[in-house]
């Protein structure tokens, strides 16, 4: 085999590898995109019926309750227009508090309850997760629109 042929073969192999890699990356990328929905959107049925997504809003005051096993917790997330019930098994993050912003990732179960496998509350006293803030703003805007009708 001449050096030129060898080089051509290697370049071709490299290109094929590159194409395969790109296809795999794109596929993996698409299947791991997690979309965000507000409680209002979930209520309207815009969220996926199966598969993970994120919700965000405020933890409703007085809604946090611990199930008898001591590990499952339930709380309600509100965007001030609509409310949804969330269940989570495990230890809540330190910054999780009633009346504060929260983002949860998980999926809807058969009863329409949101089963979270991750609860994010990375805020401090004066900081709200952007997703939670966006949910509140969307609900507020919708209300304002209805008011002007």
């Amino acid at each position, binding site marked *: 085999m001449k*050096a030129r042929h*060898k*080089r051509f073969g*290697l370049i071709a192999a490299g290109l094929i590898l590159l194409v395969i*890699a790109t296809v*795999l*990356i794109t596929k*993996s*990328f698409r*299947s*791991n*995109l*997690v*979309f*965000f929905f507000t409680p209002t959107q979930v209520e309207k049925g815009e969220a996926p019926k199966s598969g*993970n997504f*994120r919700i965000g809003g405020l933890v409703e005051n007085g809604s946090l309750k*611990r199930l008898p*096993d*001591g*590990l499952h917790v339930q709380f309600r997330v509100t965007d001030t227009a609509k409310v949804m019930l969330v269940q989570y*098994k*495990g*230890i*809540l993050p*330190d*910054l999780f508090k009633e009346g504060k912003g929260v*983002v949860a990732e998980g999926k809807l179960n058969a009863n329409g309850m949101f089963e979270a496998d991750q609860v*994010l509350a*990375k805020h*401090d*006293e004066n*900081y709200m*997760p*952007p*997703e939670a803030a*966006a949910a509140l703003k969307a609900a507020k805007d919708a209300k304002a629109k209805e008011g002007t009708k």
Partner: protein
Amino acid sequence: MIPEIGQFSLILAFCFAIVQGTLPLIGVWKNNAALSNLAVPAARTQFAFIAITFICLDYSFFANDFSVLYVASNSNSHLPLAYRLAALWGGHEGSMILWVSILALWTMAVTLFAKSLPETFRIRLISVMGMVSIGFLAFIIFTSNPFERLIPAALDGRDLNPLLQDPGMVFHPPVLYMGYVGFSVAFAFAIAALLDGRLDIAWARWTRPWTTVAWVFLTLGIAFGSKWAYYELGWGGWWFWDAVENASFMPWLVGTALIHSLAVTEKRDAFKVWTVLLSICAFSLSLLGTFLVRSGVLTSVHAFATDPRRGVFILLYLVVVIGGALLLFAWRAPKVGLGEKFDVVSRESMLLTNNVVLVAAAGSVLLGTMYPLLMDALGAGKISVGPPYFDAVFVAIMAPGLFLMGLGPLAKWKKASLPEISLRLRVAAVISVVSALLVPLIMGKLTLMTAVGVFLGIWVISTSLILLRNRIKTRQAATPNLLENIKGIPLAFYGMLLAHLGIGVFIMGVTLVKGYESEQDLRMDKNDVAKAGNLNFRFDGTQDIPGPNYMSTQGTFTVTSNGKVVAVLQPEKRFYPVQGSMMTEAAIQPGVVKDMYVSLGEPLENGAWSVRIYIKPFVQWIWAGAILMALGGVLALTDKRYRILNKKAAKEAQEALEAFEA
């Protein structure tokens, strides 16, 4: 008074940065020695004023001067002294001060230690660093003044975020910034070379140690951060593919590529344009990281700023610096030239593959990090990219590169023979395959991921050891004494070896902890016993202990194995009254083979607690690997060959220049 002095010297520093960043460049261009000689004094004066600024700000923290808004927002009179001083970089404004201080430090180092560079080149280098500094100082002065007064003064400060009250806070940010900002030297080298239109072996030799130092700091900084997240966040994770982590990881990947590419440029006078491009990219990604972390676009404990003006400013700055550098690159790169040719199978081609793999990996991380931000900015909805994407894609891209890591160092420059290399590595191949099957079986279960991971880890380690044996063997004829033989091998070689071993150790750690960690969330009453493998965790109840600025509830867990006590773990739940926040302090018994990890969840009725118990096999190997990599970098730096060659290269360059001028 002190804050005003700080502010004033910040403005003076800005003025000197402008002098340093513009006049010497004009001087070199117009051949005006008076102007070009300003570079060094201007840089040193700038350093002095920035040092004064830094000291003034830290003094305000030391003295609890709550009439300074920034101090009042980030400190508290009850905060322990070390954290008070570190609180300087606990917020947005101060971390910008840290950034420019470190830039000034690096510039100062260049004026002191880069004496062997040809005069014009050195002046350009310092001047480019001055330009970088102008942007950041303007940013601080016009949008994020840390000395702003609070009138009337606060009685006490709002305290440092409890998450940040940890020894990690003292080390992690400065070390990480030393790395980030250190790439500015390589960047300035590249820009100066483009302006010069000349890039030769001597250039690569000058740049290499600077880049390596920055890389060592960045490696350590990332490792510190990862370790900190591991014990402080209380959830036992060591890497979350969080945008902020990615922001530091991308420059690391490109920086690693740069180190290897520089080696080729120095040894073979090849990859020249590529090296310049990587230098620009590494620093651009550092700037992008700063932008991501500091502009408030991210949801993270790292994001302090929410002022959109700052975001716009940094974005503009990015466009000017990166865009300008790339334009200059497009214009001048053809002058630099591609460099020497090489065969398809050669050390050069292997290193090229290494570079492609590293850059592709950085690209995939960039895609996952920036895509959600881009979609959000375009109003296309809020999305996030899950860690499984990063795990899958990153591993898939890196795996072939790691395999080639075994072959590369054995390949000859210019033209190598694959059959010869494979013959040398057959022992390593056998060892790796056997361990890939054996180790998972010993650990309990065999999966594809663990088998591949162990194979790659052992492959990297065993090929490195074979490389060492090979080196010793080829030198045996000349130096029969084994000890002298080992001593005679240049330190740079050992540095490479150590860094590669570090990668192997790191891969083993990641594979084994991912494959075999166990996690339980439990409800435990006093005297309850939880089982994890052959270990029993007994909960002995809690007690309240006051801390300096918090109240702590400390639990005690006695861990026994076959009736013998192996560890007593005391996790805490701390309450910080100033910010009204709770913090989980995990208790960890680290070990070579496994970590035992317990953290307290929440109190339940009758003294019971929800508790999280982890067993993390080989997790310490992750950071041990990173430390080995950094040590490898340090060894490579101490190679005496450098200093001698540096002097020689300087002499040659000076002679060439004199001959040219004559």
